[in-house]
């Protein structure tokens, strides 16, 4: 059964290829069957593999499938090989399953779009790339998957490319993540160059054997990989592309920009955890990135008016929690939060998609309201997802995973009181913006009439996800045991805060957020506006709304100086070097093409002359 592993990336890839070649000529129904069917098949295969893996785990805790070596010289032996352990298994199962639900949802959501087959081709290609990234046995394949998902993200953000704004958002995502990817490529090369193998597991073993704790190489490698991770996972300081990425179709936002691709950074760091264990400085940097991002994004989410942007910031914030968990050494907790997050965030996006479509593509939450009765499916599922996001104690998945992170932070040697308090404030913010969203959208008066209600293909996946967002947390115990086969267990040392205390405090933070939100946005709707009235509040609002001025900062720091430099360098000094090369080669071309006279005697003279020259060479030597 494990031998079927290669099918998991292969089936979606075949689907993508099929749709790319014949897609435009197929009817919508056929496209839907191919596009969703391939993902369904991949899901079934991955579930079967998962069952097999759990029932009779491989002796070493991992299964490697080497299909073939692509090219090979010396230590450079990139294979088409897959590596399955508990970490990649969980990721693959979640990714394929959530992808399947979102594909199913999309068959209705994208109905009538002229790019229907193009959409499914991209989505299938994305799943194939994502699974390749997760299962990659070596750095080259990992990088292939990494760039593949980046490409698909770019294509899907700009899916409705006829609107320039979407195209610009796609470019922004591509360019910003490129900055991170470059750092990561350097980091991967650093690993390969110093440790002499491409296989990730061998690399980790070699790093463990050859590098001392705190060695500069390990720190450099850790920081460079972190660079790639923050780019892909939209963490500080490269988070600015994700809110704009909401320009893509809502299923895309759900799949790529919430549930799966943006967590690739988390996966990367977990996969290379050995490096971080050898580089405490780099690991601490991960924790700091996490805590700062989750707080900043939490504030920004509070001020947004676009429903999808609120969710985008909440995604950034939740991935911040995962980074925090990685940073404090709670590897399993990070992956656990990835899983629950995948369920409830995909759910929130899909439910918001229902709302948006029901209201003629209205994104502004201030023009929504009272949808509780109008769209009951959306309301109840959104409520379930929202509670999971905010961490409603005891009954939601999000509570269990987030609580584990908070407890770990408190008790980690790297964490401590400050990080713990930061995390708790984050919980408060989460609760606040989540219920702000829920109250504004589903309570109060109806502001925009509902025109369209979802069918079963949209409602079904949402309900399945809602169920998972509730019950997904109950597997916590066995999940942690499973994770210890692939990732190091959490080392407890620090404040000595018990789980009960941690949970209680987090529950209080949640409740506080809920009550304040109720007070402001339901009981006294004018209060929020008044808060913004006085100067400090307005400034803060603007500051938060614009994502702490990050875009402004980049604009001033990078874009404008570059534009300025480009303007004064209109005749490009450096370019003249290339122009020079081009001119020289062109001159060579003109000179060389004079030799092609087409005259037979001249041709023969070249043969004789060439012989004269070669004879002269051997005579002189």
């Amino acid at each position, binding site marked *: 059964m494990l031998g079927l592993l290669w099918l998991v990336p292969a089936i979606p890839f075949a689907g993508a290829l099929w749709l790319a070649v014949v897609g435009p000529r197929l009817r919508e129904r056929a496209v839907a069957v191919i596009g969703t069917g391939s993902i369904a098949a991949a899901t079934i295969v991955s579930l079967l593999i998962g069952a097999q893996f759990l029932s009779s785990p491989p002796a070493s805790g991992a299964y490697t499938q080497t299909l073939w070596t692509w090219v090979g010289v010396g230590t450079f032996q990139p294979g088409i090989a897959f590596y399955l352990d508990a970490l990649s298994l969980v990721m693959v199962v979640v990714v394929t399953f959530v992808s399947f639900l979102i594909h199913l949802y999309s068959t209705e959501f994208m109905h009538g779009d002229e790019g229907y087959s193009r959409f499914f081709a991209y989505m299938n290609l994305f799943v194939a790339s994502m699974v390749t990234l997760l299962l990659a046995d070596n750095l080259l394949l990992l990088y292939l998957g990494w760039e593949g998902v980046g490409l698909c993200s770019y294509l899907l953000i700009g899916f409705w490319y006829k609107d320039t704004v979407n195209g610009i958002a796609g470019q922004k995502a591509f360019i910003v993540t490129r900055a991170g990817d470059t750092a990561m490529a350097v980091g991967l090369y650093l690993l390969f160059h110093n440790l002499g193998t491409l296989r990730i597991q061998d690399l980790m073993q070699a790093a463990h054997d050859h590098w001392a704790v705190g060695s500069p190489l390990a720190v450099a490698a850790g920081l460079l990989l972190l660079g790639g991770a923050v780019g892909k996972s939209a963490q500080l300081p490269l988070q600015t592309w994700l809110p704009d990425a909401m320009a893509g179709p809502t299923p895309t936002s759900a799949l790529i920009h919430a549930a799966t691709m943006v967590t690739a950074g988390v996966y990367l760091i977990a996969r290379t955890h050995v490096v971080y264990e050898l580089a405490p400085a780099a690991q601490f940097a991960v924790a700091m990135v996490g805590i700062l991002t989750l707080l900043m994004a939490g504030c920004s989410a509070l001020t947004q008016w676009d429903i999808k942007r609120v969710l985008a910031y909440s995604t950034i914030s939740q991935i911040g929690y995962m980074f925090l968990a990685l940073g404090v050494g709670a590897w399993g907790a990070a992956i656990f939060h990835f899983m629950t997050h995948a369920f409830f965030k995909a759910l929130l996006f899909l439910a918001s998609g229902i709302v948006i479509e029901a209201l003629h593509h209205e994104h502004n939450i201030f023009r929504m309201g009272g949808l509780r009765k109008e769209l009951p499916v959306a309301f109840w599922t959104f409520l379930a997802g929202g509670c999971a996001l905010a961490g409603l104690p005891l009954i939601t998945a999000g509570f269990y995973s987030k609580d584990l992170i908070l407890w770990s932070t408190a008790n980690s040697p790297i964490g401590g009181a400050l990080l713990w308090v930061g995390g708790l404030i984050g919980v408060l913010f989460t609760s606040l913006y989540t219920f702000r969203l829920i109250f504004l959208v589903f309570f109060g008066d109806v502001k925009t009439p509902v025109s369209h209600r979802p069918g079963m293909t949209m409602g079904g996946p949402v309900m399945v996800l809602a169920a998972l967002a509730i019950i997904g947390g109950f597997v916590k115990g066995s999940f942690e045991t499973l994770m210890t086969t692939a990732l190091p267990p959490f080392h407890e040392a620090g404040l000595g805060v018990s789980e009960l205390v941690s949970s209680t405090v987090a529950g209080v933070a949640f409740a506080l957020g809920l009550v304040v939100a109720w007070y402001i946005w339901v009981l006294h709707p004018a209060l929020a506006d008044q808060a913004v009235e006085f100067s400090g509040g307005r400034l803060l609002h603007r500051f938060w709304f614009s994502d702490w001025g990050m875009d402004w900062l980049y604009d001033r720091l990078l874009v404008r100086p570059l534009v300025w430099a480009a303007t004064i360098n209109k005749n490009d000094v450096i370019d003249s070097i290339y122009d020079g090369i081009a001119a020289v080669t062109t001159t060579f071309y003109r000179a060389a093409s004079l030799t092609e006279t087409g005259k037979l005697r001249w041709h023969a003279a070249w043969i004789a002359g060439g012989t004269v020259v070669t004879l002269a060479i*051997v005579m002189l030597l």
Partner: protein
Amino acid sequence: MTGLDFIALLPLLILAAATVIVMLAIAIHRCHALSAALTFVGLGASFGSLWISACRVPCKVTPLLLIDRYSLFYMGLITVASLVVVLLSYGYFEKLDGDHDELYILMLVATLGSAVLVSSNHFISFFLGLELLSVPLYGMIAYTRRRPLPLEAGVKYLVLAAVSATFMLFGMALVYGALGTMRFDQMATQLVLPGFDPWLVIPGLTLIITGFGFKLALAPFHIWTPDIYQGAPAPVAAYVATISKGAMFALLLRYFYQIEAQGQAPVMTVFAVIAIVSMCAGNILALLQDNVKRILAYSSIAHLGYLVVAFQASGQLAIIAVGFYLVAYFITMLGAFGIVAVLSGSAGDADSLSDYRGLFWRRPVVASVFTLMLFSLAGIPVTAGFIGKFYIVAAGASVAMWSQIIVLVVTSAIGLFYYLRIVVAIFSDSAGSADAGPAIALPGSVALGFLTAALVFLGVYPQPLLGLIRSLPPG
């Protein structure tokens, strides 16, 4: 000659028999489809018989031929390429008036000559193989003789091929005069004797290099290439670009390895110079060229230069690099000329760059295949061309031939420019008519489909072929 020898010779015998059968068939009934089909079957039978011969090798058949796994591999490559050319030729010539049957006789003889070349072990079989390849090519290049360009190309090729062949013959005579043997395997033992005559052997080898250089279109013996490619009918140009060069290169590798020429420093210097000059000349000459067939001609000059770099590296890696690169080169060149062939009509070959402007919007599939072929020529990953180039660089680096590798990398970058020029033309907006032109004949589509599949397959999964090549010592 024993029964065993006949089994080893089977691929050659089948080719010779097929020639006679096609000729008799033409004498009885002239029919283009029948001639092409018989040729196809003959080549296919010859290809199939390789497996029968493989059980009997290595086998020295008279002093002339050495049939071993190495020669059988290249025979296979040559026959498969000929099969593709037959498919392309059928579609191409079907659109033209006149008799097309003789072409297939000539092609079979030329293929026989190539097969003799790759298995030759003696100057006599070397020379006869070379001429068996050349003489039919004169006829094939000038085949559509009523058109001025093929006629001109035929005349040029005849004169130049004859001149270079005589240079080569003279070199062979010198080597023979110095060593007293024309057998490759005996030459090596003569060359290690202290008494051998370097004053004749080294210049003799140099003159032989002239012959190789001409057939392989290596600079400075490259000047003929663009004119011949442009003038010859597209399928014949494909034949000249692939089979005649591939057979010659396989022999080059075998001959110089067998006589252990790596020890002859002056000879290797000549190859180094030839490689560098070829890479530069080929890539620079193609830069602003507007005729697609000429671009491909110049590009082939550069590609043979890359191959010589690998050839010089010597050792296991070099053999792998040469073998794989040749296969990749065959696929892409056949594909590129195949595109030209299927797009050409009765008015003449579609070889101007303007013919390809906006091709993607008229014929998306053909344009995509062409783009893929060009990417492979440029050495972009996930195509066979990339793997080939990768191994060439690896082979060169393994023996630290840095000057050649630097030239290879720089000129490849220049090369990217003219490949992309074609790609840009393919994808540019076509101001002209959206007329797709006539439909492509089935044989041509089959050939192109096969080549495309092979290109991607080898680019992603090169291991089986690499393993096969690894098991073929050329000596």
